[in-house]
Every structure is written in C-alpha cells, then in structure tokens.
C-alpha cells in the first residue's frame, strides 16, 4: 500500500470487530431460519410433522423476512469490510446500523410470533390491513414499522459509505468507473472491483429502499386511516421494485468477497477492465428496470412493461454469465488453487448464482410465466441465487476471516454436504413447480407431498453442512486475527 492509500483506508484495528459481530449474529440466524425452512417443507410433505395453516404462514413470513433481512446485513458486512480497505469508514455508524437493525428484528419477530402477523415478507397491500381477524392492526403496524426501521438503518450506513467514496474518488460515478469506461480517463488497473461494486449497490439500493420507504409509509397510513386506500397496482409496483432491488443488492454486495478473496487463492489478479465496467454499469441500470417481470400476470400493466420485463430478465443474466462467473473460472483454471473451505465455498457461490439464472430467465418469459408464476418454480430459482449463491459467499468470507479458510477436513466435507443438500433442495422446488405445485401453500395435495419430504430432507442436509462450516467459525471468530500474508499476497 502506498502512503496515500493508507491515508484513505480505515485503520486496521477498526475494520474487523463490528464485521465479526455482524457475521456471528448472521450465521446463527441463518441456521435457525434454515430449520424453519426445513420445517415448512416437512409440513408440506405431511409425513413427519403437521403444522396448522396459521402457524405455517407465520413461519413463512418469519423465514422470508428473516432471511432477506439477514442476507442484507451479512452482505453489508462483506461490502463494508472490503470497502473499508480503500476508504475511511466510520465504525460507530456501522455499529449503529446493527443496533437499529436488531431493534427492527425484535419488532418484526414480535409482530409475527406474538402478534401473529402473517402477510408474508412482501406485505402485499392491502393484505396487512385485511387479515379477517387473524392479526391486529397493531401487529401489522409493528411489522411494517420494523421493516421501515431496517431501511433507515441501511440508509444510515450507506450515507457514510457514500460520503467516504466521494471523498476519495470524487463522485459515485467515478467510483463506478464511468470515466474509464467512456474513455475520459485511462483504465486504471488498480481501481478496486470492490469499489465499483459498492458504487453500484449504493445507487440501486438507495433507490430501492426509498421506494420501499414510500410504500411502507403508505401502508402505515392505510392501516391507521383505512379510507385512505392507495391504488393496489401502484402499491404492487412499488413493493416489487423495492423487493427485487433489495434482494439483488445483497448478491452484488456479497460478490465482493469473491473478487477480493479468490485472487489470493488463485495468485492471479482480478482487475477492472472495460468489459468489467460495462457489465457493472449495465447491471446497475437493469436491476432498476427489470422488476416488471414480477407483474407479468397483471394484465392491467402496459404491454411494453411486460415485454421489457421479459427482455431485461434475459439480458440481466448476461453480465453474470459472461463476466463474473466466466472471469472466476478463468482465474481458477490451471491456477493450482488450494481447495479449502473458503475457496470451495466461493467457487460454489459463483456456480449457484450462474446456474440459478437459467430457471430465472426461463420463468421471465411471458409464455412460461403463464403456467409457472407463483408455483414453487419461483422459490426454486431464487434459492439457487440465495442458498447456493449468496450464502456461500458469506460463509466463504466468514471462513476466510476467522480461519484463513483453513477448516481442515470438516470444512471441506461441510462444503460438499452443503452443496449437495442445497442443490437437491432447489431441484425439488423446480420439479414441484413443473408439476404446478403452488408456492405459499400450507397444505399440499397428496400427489405433491413426496416432494415436500425430499425438500425437508435436503433442508436437513443443508443445515448439517452449514453447522459443520459455521460452528468452528463461530468458536474462532471472537479471537480471530487475519494473517497478514493472505491479505497482501
């Protein structure tokens, strides 16, 4: 590092403590919510346990909101950790975001488990206000208020990240590499991919959270004063814009772990280039514009939006398949890479992300959506992204941070177990979707139930794999110090 780089960077002592806190909490919550997921699938299988619809839909809301929120926080930790290498971030603000988020979590969990709120994590208007007596207005307000607080917590740390980036790079656009992309500045191979990704995440997620805040506030107003009833289609647009952007931003944040760690293993550089910058600019725009693929079955939407939704769904996959996954594979090919827990998980994450694009793009076609929309096909594709993409990024990062990736045989076997279980789980969702099994059904018809059992079993396998990786990490994390060789080498 040069002197000027050190001047901008966050002091080393401040980089890890709060990140460890995020990861420790995140891993515990992930494991707990996986158990909830496996229980749901078992309930749909109906041979091992039975859960009443009331509790099922509460668990579904808990699993959805909890996983999305935790994914957001864990991905933020990855993003913050690596960004702090290049710009000076404020550890106190980062901690403040965590504290606010935990308050939000208490509100969300309380509204579900005590208040019986069960409108799903997407809180699709006007369901929160129309439970037919199942949950109270207070429970709905607490849930929606919790999500709003979570959004505020994110905006807080994004503000700090944004200011720090502008201080060092002049503007968000410059951090995204636009002057280099358009030839106004020469390509600077030392410009960190982590900064490019951070800029993208800031742009899309601030927009996404802003839309989320608007729709949450409108929902609150409607709950307090029901005659104030906004248009249902408008609300749906806002909700899916927010939901799509937020969950996608988690992956684009967490992939920074791959950019930063995989090159250390492969002993080859992952540097910015024109295709890299073009891909990230394209992704920035497409993540913002592609959400209408959630509304293909709303025929009241203008046709051009449906067409745009279908086409952008396809093009959104190209940067990942052609740039990120491909570059990752190039990096690994004949690199003599050391396969340990962290490197296996990071390569697995690229696989999960890339392979999940296939069912996603296919479901993004209007013709297919007519028969696949809101079947289990949909959880099938996004569990590929999240369970097999995002989570291995986070786990790989945690493994690297706590143990330099070296978790011995248990770690390697754990990664294998995880990969097998997760693939099986996702495939069982896809097959269910192809058999027209609806998503979000507490009770499944007899002919669908065997798939629930397969899913529950695979969920159990995933959980075992997760624990094999996460427990040693959790035990080591508090005392872990990064060996400096792997940081610089």
């Amino acid at each position, binding site marked *: 590092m040069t002197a000027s780089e050190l001047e901008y960077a966050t002091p080393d002592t401040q980089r890890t403590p709060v990140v460890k806190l995020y990861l420790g909490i995140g891993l515990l919550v992930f494991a707990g919510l996986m158990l909830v997921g496996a229980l749901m699938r078992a309930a749909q299988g109906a041979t091992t346990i039975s859960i009443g619809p009331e509790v099922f839909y509460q668990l579904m809301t808990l699993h959805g909101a909890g996983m999305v929120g935790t994914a957001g926080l864990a991905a933020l930790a990855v993003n913050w950790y690596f960004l702090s290498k290049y710009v000076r971030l404020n550890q106190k603000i980062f901690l403040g975001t965590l504290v606010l988020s935990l308050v939000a979590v208490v509100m969300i969990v309380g509204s579900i488990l005590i208040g019986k709120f069960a409108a799903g994590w997407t809180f699709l208007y006007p369901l929160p206000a129309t439970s037919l007596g199942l949950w109270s207005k207070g429970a709905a307000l607490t849930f929606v208020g919790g999500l709003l607080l979570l959004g505020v917590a994110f905006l807080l740390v994004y503000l700090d990240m944004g200011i720090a980036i502008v201080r060092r790079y002049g503007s968000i656009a410059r951090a995204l590499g636009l002057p280099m992309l358009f030839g106004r500045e020469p390509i600077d191979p030392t410009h960190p991919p982590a900064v490019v990704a951070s800029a993208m995440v800031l742009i899309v997620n601030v927009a996404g959270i802003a839309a989320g805040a608007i729709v949450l506030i409108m929902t609150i107003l409607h709950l307090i004063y029901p005659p104030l009833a906004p248009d249902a289609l408008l609300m749906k647009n806002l909700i899916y814009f927010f939901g799509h952007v937020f969950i996608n931003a988690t992956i684009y944040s967490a992939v920074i772990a791959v950019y930063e760690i995989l090159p250390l293993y492969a002993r080859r550089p992952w540097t910015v280039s024109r295709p890299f910058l073009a891909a990230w600019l394209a992704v920035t725009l497409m993540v913002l514009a592609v959400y209408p693929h959630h509304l293909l079955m709303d025929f009241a939407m203008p046709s051009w939006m449906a067409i745009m939704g*279908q086409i952008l769904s396809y093009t959104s996959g190209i940067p990942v398949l052609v740039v990120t996954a*491909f570059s990752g594979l190039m990096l690994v*090919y*004949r690199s003599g890479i050391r396969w340990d827990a962290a490197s296996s998980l990071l390569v697995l994450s690229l696989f999960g992300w890339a392979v999940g694009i296939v069912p996603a793009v296919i479901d993004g076609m209007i013709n297919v959506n007519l028969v696949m929309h809101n079947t289990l096909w949909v959880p099938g594709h996004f569990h590929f992204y999240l369970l097999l993409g995002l989570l291995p990024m986070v786990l790989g990062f945690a493994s690297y941070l706590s143990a330099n990736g070296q978790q011995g045989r248990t770690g390697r076997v754990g990664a294998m177990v995880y990969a097998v279980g997760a693939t099986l789980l996702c495939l069982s969702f896809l097959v269910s979707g192809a058999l*027209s099994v609806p998503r979000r059904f507490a009770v499944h018809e007899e002919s669908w139930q065997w798939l629930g059992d397969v899913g529950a079993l695979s969920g159990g396998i995933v959980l075992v794999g997760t624990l094999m990786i996460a427990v040693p990490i959790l035990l080591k994390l508090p005392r872990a110090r990064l060996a400096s060789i792997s940081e610089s080498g």
Partner: protein
Amino acid sequence: MQISILLVTLLGMAFVAAAFVFVVLNSGPRDEDYGGIAKRGYFIRRWWMIGLCAAGVVVSAWSLVPFPLQASSVESPRIIQAIGRQWSWELASSSVEAGEPVRFRVTSLDVNHGFAIYGPDDQIIAQTQAMPGYYNDLDVTFERAGKYRVLCLEYCGLAHHTMVAEIDVKERR
C-alpha cells in the same frame, strides 16, 4: 408444456455445471502463463457472449411475436365474470363446453388473489391476477372435457390454499 420447460432448464443448468466441473477438475497443476490463459479465455468469452445475444434475439422474437397476452382475436368469446374474495371464488358460470372460447373477467373484492386454472391432469393451463379495482381478461379455450379447478395462486391469508372452485367442461354437443 411444463415438462418441456423443466427439461430445457435442466439442460441449460447441466451446461453451466459442466463448465464448472471442467474448470475445477483442471484447476491444477499451476500454469504460470496467466496471460496466455486469459487470451484464450477472452476468445471463448467473445463467442459465448455473441452466442448468448443471438440466442436471446431469436428466443425473444419467437416468444413475443405475437404478443402472448393479447386477448385472442376470437370475435365474441363467452364472457364469465370471476370474482375472488377471502376465501372463495364466485364464477358467473362454472360450466362450459369444450372448444368454446371463454374470456374470464377476473377481479377481487378485497386483497390480491391469483386466478389459476388447473386441468384434469392437475397442471396449470393459464392464470392471471385477481386484483381489487382492476379487471384482467384471461382467454381460455378448453380443449378437453373434464373437471377443471381454479386455485388461488396469490397468497391472501389464512385459508389461501383452500380457495378452490370447479369448472365443469362438457363434451361438445
């Protein structure tokens, strides 16, 4: 239809998986000449990119022309109102003839519901959203006689999964 979709998807996924397996199996021994690897990689990548774009253009054109959601050109389909509410369907008529073009005019009285028609073999044949304040027209021509069902495919609360209606499709007279 769904089974072909599944097979195409699995094929695509197997292709991605094969690329990863190939690289993982060939991750060693180390080749110090990364420049050479990158050069070959970029060559492959260019064609991979062109191939994906070409496939995208072809598939988009094939699947979007004619636009799949346009109400079909049938002159005067039989119109059947379908109203969803927590937690039941109200169909203006639940009996149609095979081969008769039907237009379901779908809406909701309370929250969002999903109006999905399941064939006698329990596969979805078509769907649309049932949304308060909006009418969505879904054109269906039932080819075969039999018992069809309408299931709710948008989560709408406690009894979402029990929101079922039947449509009796009779042999053409």
